[in-house]
């Protein structure tokens, strides 16, 4: 279990992380979400002992990141942002080097190597020089390096950045299977990736936590408006703008006309669906409906809302 309390980090006069607190439980996969520059990487660097916090504390199983740093580092596997590797080494040499520092040698190293090669799908490249491996393989080598000592906690900074869709699915499956027995804390600025993999989401914006919960919790707590896209023909501007007066639950958002096709957007509350009334209204006004497409608020909108509102404040 990891307990982060009132953690802050200042770079000179810039406050990168402002007094954030959260708990991470064993066996949980937690996504750490935020726009670029929100403070994700800084937080992870403090949790792994790379940076010293300006204020606050990180406790891993009751060990303190300042006092017991090596004890904590033994329990954590960390994949830094951009996945740095000693590219001139061969894959097994690199893993052996890390294992030696972590006190794993001989028979134990052979077992550990077999385990990570199996888990990360490295069979074909073990004897290759790292610089000759593809980007997808490099990412898996980074992951294997983080797992060589079979840590209870994995901290992954943007683990799927730069991978192609197939590789993303593979890494996602790997993380999911690891999450069954480990605490996995992964950061990302890509929502779909987080949504599909994690049990819980923590959203950080401008150095502060703005949301913390499962994806369904986050969805139900959001404002929950539905945006309705309609393509119609034969609607007059008057009749479109008149909708709001006739149907109070519908709010007019935008209107655009291209080649005789009217593209209209309405908004309505999640609880009352006015589509039937809207259809009747359209028929009465001789609109020909070509498309009606409700767009429910999803995590992406929540993310955008949470991070945009704050931007407006700043």
């Amino acid at each position, binding site marked *: 279990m990891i307990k982060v309390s009132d953690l802050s980090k200042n*770079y000179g006069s810039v406050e990168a992380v402002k007094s954030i607190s959260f708990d991470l439980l064993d066996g949980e996969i937690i996504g750490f979400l935020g726009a670029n520059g929100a403070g994700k990487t800084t937080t992870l*660097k403090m949790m*792994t*002992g*790379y*940076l*010293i916090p300006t204020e606050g504390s990180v406790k891993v199983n009751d060990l303190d990141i300042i006092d017991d740093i*090596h*004890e904590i*580092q*033994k329990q*954590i596997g*960390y994949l*830094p*942002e*951009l996945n*740095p*590797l*000693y*590219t*001139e*080494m061969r894959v097994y*040499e690199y893993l052996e*080097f*890390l294992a*030696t*520092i*972590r006190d794993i040698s001989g028979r134990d190293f052979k077992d550990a190597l077999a385990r990570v090669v199996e888990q990360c799908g490295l069979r074909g490249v073990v004897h290759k020089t790292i610089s000759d491996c593809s980007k997808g393989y490099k990412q898996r080598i980074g992951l294997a*390096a983080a797992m060589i000592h079979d840590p209870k906690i994995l901290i992954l900074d943007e683990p799927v950045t730069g991978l192609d869709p197939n590789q993303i699915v593979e890494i996602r499956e790997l993380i999911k299977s690891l999450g069954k027995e480990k605490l996995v804390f992964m950061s990302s600025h890509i929502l779909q990736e987080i949504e599909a993999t994690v049990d819980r989401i923590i959203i950080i914006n401008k150095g502060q936590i703005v949301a913390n919960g499962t994806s369904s919790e986050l969805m139900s707590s959001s404002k929950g408006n539905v945006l309705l896209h309609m393509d119609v023909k034969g609607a007059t501007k008057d009749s479109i703008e008149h909708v709001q007066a006739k149907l109070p639950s519908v709010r007019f958002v935008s209107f655009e006309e291209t080649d005789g096709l009217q593209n209209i957007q309405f908004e309505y509350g999640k609880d009352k669906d006015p589509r039937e009334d809207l259809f009747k209204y359209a028929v009465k006004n001789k609109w020909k409906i070509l498309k009606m497409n409700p767009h429910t608020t999803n995590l992406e909108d929540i993310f955008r809302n949470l991070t945009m509102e704050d931007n407006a404040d700043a």
Partner: protein
Amino acid sequence: MRNVSTICKRELGGFFNSPMAYIFLVIFAIVNGYFFTNTFFLFGQSDLRVLFDIVPLVYLFFIPAVSMGLIARENNLGTMEIMSTMPINTYEFVLGKFLAASSLILLGLVATSIHLFTLISVGTNVDYGAIFSGYLGLALMGGTYAAIGTYASSVTENQVVAFIIGVFIVLVFFMLDKTLVFVPRSIAGFIQFLAVDYHLSNISRGVIDSRNLVYFFSMIGFFIFLAIRTLEMKRWK
């Protein structure tokens, strides 16, 4: 200590996996060999003094070049972050790096002993004591420069910058001895004591005085300490 040797071995492996080590050893041998054999048969002296005079000059640029990548490259690649989040102390990391550079330099130095065999086969009355102390002096000087290079490499992530800083610091200590005429007599003794050449020439003459040894070891210790501090300060930034 096991971590120190692990780091050192990896770094040496890195040297020999890239052209770096081979270029260093070959050019080091050619330059020293050229200047040594150029004059060797003219003087008819049974010693290696010419070699011992030329190596310090070659060191001036070679050692900063060997050590420029030690830490700067890790800063640049981001592998520093991996090393910093492993259960390893900063001093073990820096010592391992320093020892790797020193080992390569020693290897270059050992290669020059080929000239010793030339000497033994053609010379008479070879003074083995002087040759031993000459090599000892060069080894200590190499270590001192390697420590300076390690420090220079820790302050930046740009290897070229590390090289320039390294050459500059090395040059300062190398030139101190030559500036004595320009400094007031009251501090001349102190300046002379800081000069690396002064201690080298003492040892090369065959006088292995503890003051000279203390000088070299404190220089090495001082710059390694600076490198460790530089790396630790980065975590507080």
